[in-house]
């Protein structure tokens, strides 16, 4: 925890109202200002106590505080450093350790995830039982998306018009396994907009989960592998459609800063969120009307961590006949936040309920975001509230539908499969 970064905080409290845990519990130590104060205590010699670790663990890493802070406090850096310290210095209970070990042994690895799909689908029925054994297991089961048909993407997809760019695509572990249709839509949109898309076949995890949980060494390993993969693919721009992956990839140079060779290689690659990239590129493909009302949800790792808020709205708003609606309290996290709904199921649930209520209040037909984790989370909350199935889609799928002239009924697959 860098004391210089801590000192930047002037204790003004401007970050409090967008901090999801402060919104929930209304106490200082579960606010960004309070957490920075805890870090300061640690820097000044207070050991990591159970209480301290608890409040730091409860941070969703949503980075709403970074957006809100007028003093430019790098809370993102601070919490990353802090998580690493907590991971090293704090002795967790055996229960906690077991659950963490399981999650980290599973999520960053595609093949293991694939193997999990069937048991997870089964475990949905067992949810009440799992919940009693361990809330995290319950949360995992509740969130498990329906097992989709596997979509295999070719290593290169050629542009469907005069080529304007060549880009690499990160397929993402969770995205690739549970939401392959999102990657397929992304590739089609890019190709229709004039890009050659290179999809390296054996991509590993980008390291986001490890980085956001304080597992530094592991994160670095994943980062180096990913960089090397895209270097080999011969692209200098990598398009990412999963918000969590994008935010950590943009941080590669920082993560690898102790290693000049690698940080230089990281800097040589341009990582771009899909919406950000498409707006930079400018539209050429024809947009067909898509008569549907859409509530757009800001995924924290996109809106706060990458500052990408306007671009997705611009892209969606430009689709003829699409009615774009804002969700109240859009800056506040839905509680999904990477592994958060696994480690802090109670808080995640409360935030999910809160978000679902506001999404439903828009009356929109379709919920759209750049992060399937979020939409899964919000869909689970509406289901819990007995409000039926929420139709959800990724920004890429909506664009794809418009570009290909599909009907809006083609969107929102959860409603079909989850029943």
């Amino acid at each position, binding site marked *: 925890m860098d004391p210089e970064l801590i000192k930047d905080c002037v204790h003004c409290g401007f970050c409090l109202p967008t901090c999801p845990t402060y919104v929930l519990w209304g*106490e200082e130590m579960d606010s960004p200002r309070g957490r920075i104060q*805890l870090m300061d205590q640690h820097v000044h010699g207070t050991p990591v106590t159970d209480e301290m670790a608890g409040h730091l663990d409860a941070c969703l890493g949503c980075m709403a505080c970074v957006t809100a802070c007028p003093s430019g406090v790098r809370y993102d850096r601070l919490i990353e450093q802090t998580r690493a310290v907590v991971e090293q210095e704090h002795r967790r209970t055996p229960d906690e350790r077991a659950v963490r070990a399981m999650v980290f042994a599973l999520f960053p690895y595609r093949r293991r995830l694939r193997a999990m799909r069937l048991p997870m689908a089964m475990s949905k029925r067992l949810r009440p039982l799992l919940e009693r054994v361990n809330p995290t297991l319950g949360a995992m089961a509740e969130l498990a998306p329906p097992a989709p048909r596997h979509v295999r993407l070719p290593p290169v997809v050629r542009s469907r018009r005069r080529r304007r760019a060549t880009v690499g695509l990160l397929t993402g572990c969770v995205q690739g396994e549970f939401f392959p249709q999102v990657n397929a839509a992304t590739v089609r949109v890019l190709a229709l907009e004039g890009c050659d898309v290179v999809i390296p076949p054996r991509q590993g995890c980008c390291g986001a989960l490890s980085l956001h949980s304080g597992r530094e060494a592991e994160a670095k390993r994943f980062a180096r592998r990913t960089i090397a993969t895209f270097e080999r693919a011969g692209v200098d721009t990598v398009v990412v459609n999963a918000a969590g992956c994008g935010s950590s990839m943009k941080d590669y140079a920082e993560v690898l800063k102790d290693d000049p060779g690698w940080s230089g290689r990281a800097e040589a690659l341009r990582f771009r969120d899909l919406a950000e990239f498409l707006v930079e590129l400018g539209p050429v493909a024809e947009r067909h009307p898509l008569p549907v009302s859409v509530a757009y949800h800001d995924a924290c790792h996109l809106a706060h961590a990458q500052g990408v808020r306007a671009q997705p709205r611009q892209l969606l708003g430009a689709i003829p006949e699409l009615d774009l609606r804002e969700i109240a309290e859009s800056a506040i996290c839905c509680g999904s936040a990477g592994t958060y709904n696994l480690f802090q199921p109670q808080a995640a649930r409360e935030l999910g309920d809160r978000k679902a209520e506001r999404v439903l209040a828009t009356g929109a037909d379709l919920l759209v975001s750049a992060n399937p984790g979020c939409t899964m989370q919000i869909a689970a909350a509406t289901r819990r509230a007995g409000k039926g199935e929420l139709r959800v889609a990724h920004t890429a799928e909506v664009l794809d539908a418009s570009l290909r002239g599909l009907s809006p009924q083609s969107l929102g697959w959860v409603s079909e499969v989850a029943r």
Partner: protein
Amino acid sequence: MSTLQRLTERLGDILDEGSVITDPVRLRTYDCDGLTYHRATPGVVVLPESAEQIAAVVRLCDEYGVPFVARGSGTGLSGGALPRTDGVLIVTSRMRRILEIDIPNRRAVVEPGVTNLAISEAVRERGYYYAPDPSSQQICSIGGNVAENSGGAHCLKYGFTVNHVVGIELVTPQGEIVELSDRDPGYDLLGAFIGSEGTLGIATKITVRLSRTPEAVTTLLAAFTGIEGGGRAVSAIIGAGIVPAAIEMMDALAIEAAEAAVHCGYPEGAGAVLVVELDGPHAEVDHQFAAVERICRETGAFEIRVAASAEERAAIWKGRKSAFAAVGRISPAYIVQDGVVPRTALPEVLAAIDRLQEEFGIRVANVFHAGDGNLHPLVLFDDTVPGQGEHAEAASGRILDLCIEHGGSITGEHGVGVDKSRYMPRMFSEEDLDTMQLVRCAFDPKGLSNPGKVFPTPRLCGEVPGVRKGVHPLVESGMAEQF
């Protein structure tokens, strides 16, 4: 067992476990408000959820003779919510329900922890808002606003908190729940409570007046090469009989900070910018706008921008509203001062502040509500350099002296708190202070409600001001000092 420990044991009868904080690491997160220069770890923190719980906690404090301090969102800038190490900190951050919105009567009833902005947001769609708008409005609590009689950029035309609060339910320092209203006959106790900085009890329910959103709003940004031009424009605008909703000024250093923080894109080369906002019926706004624009040009504005949309207006305000916190970008630490001078004395006082900068070798950024002469000099320093904090304190004390010398005041809207209590004798005579003390004693005879704030040294109630006999129990217990 200490008195506080005995009291703490009984808190469990009033509040659930999660609402009483005793763990030292947790307690420390409450050790200061927005003025980080003063710190003290509270003895115990409670997070009540109802007036009854607050009343019960206060009754315990009364029974044990333990001091208590109220805290809202902890954004105060005078150390008003600085805790007592031997006392209870009562935090209202879980009392944030809007209880009633009554549009026909233009009223809203809210709990004290509701943020200032949340009230406006709740009624915006119906064409109303809550007028006082401190720059901290997104987070400061309405209870804190009441305690500090907070103002904001638009107070020039619309007045301070005291003009917009029509009723309060409060817990007295003896733990009774009492209601005050602007309709009460007799003494204006509501007026006395507003601005009392937590020394007369804790507000538990607040009835605010809602204002109609103005028909038209025009915001203009005028850039000057130096602060003098801006000052002349302000005098000329007010002199022309125009009362803008707001006139705000920032100097070069404040602009630099805001630019670094929020990239507000103010005109390059500006030594001062003036933000003028006019609101009201269309015809009136148009007419006044023409006059203001002409005045700005005549007084030397080299660039004038007019906000054409709500987004552009927000962009102009963003620089101004983030200015305090933004100073964090250009300095490790800073003190926000809050002095008032008659508008006509502005140029002279600003020149004197300039000289102080040289004398102390310290930088001062100026942000102010120019319309009513409320200065917010930001005294920049590096808190890791030993002695710099004291140095900055001394410089900011001198700025307050300047304000007093020019017939102004030591606080416009941030309150006295702990920070400025020692300047009170420079503004008021012993008799004045004694008289205020009598009011305090009428509400809080034991001196338990936020002691050590506002007044230079805890004065003791139950004594005739001026003449003191014997040792007061508070002195005996070490809670107050006799002077």
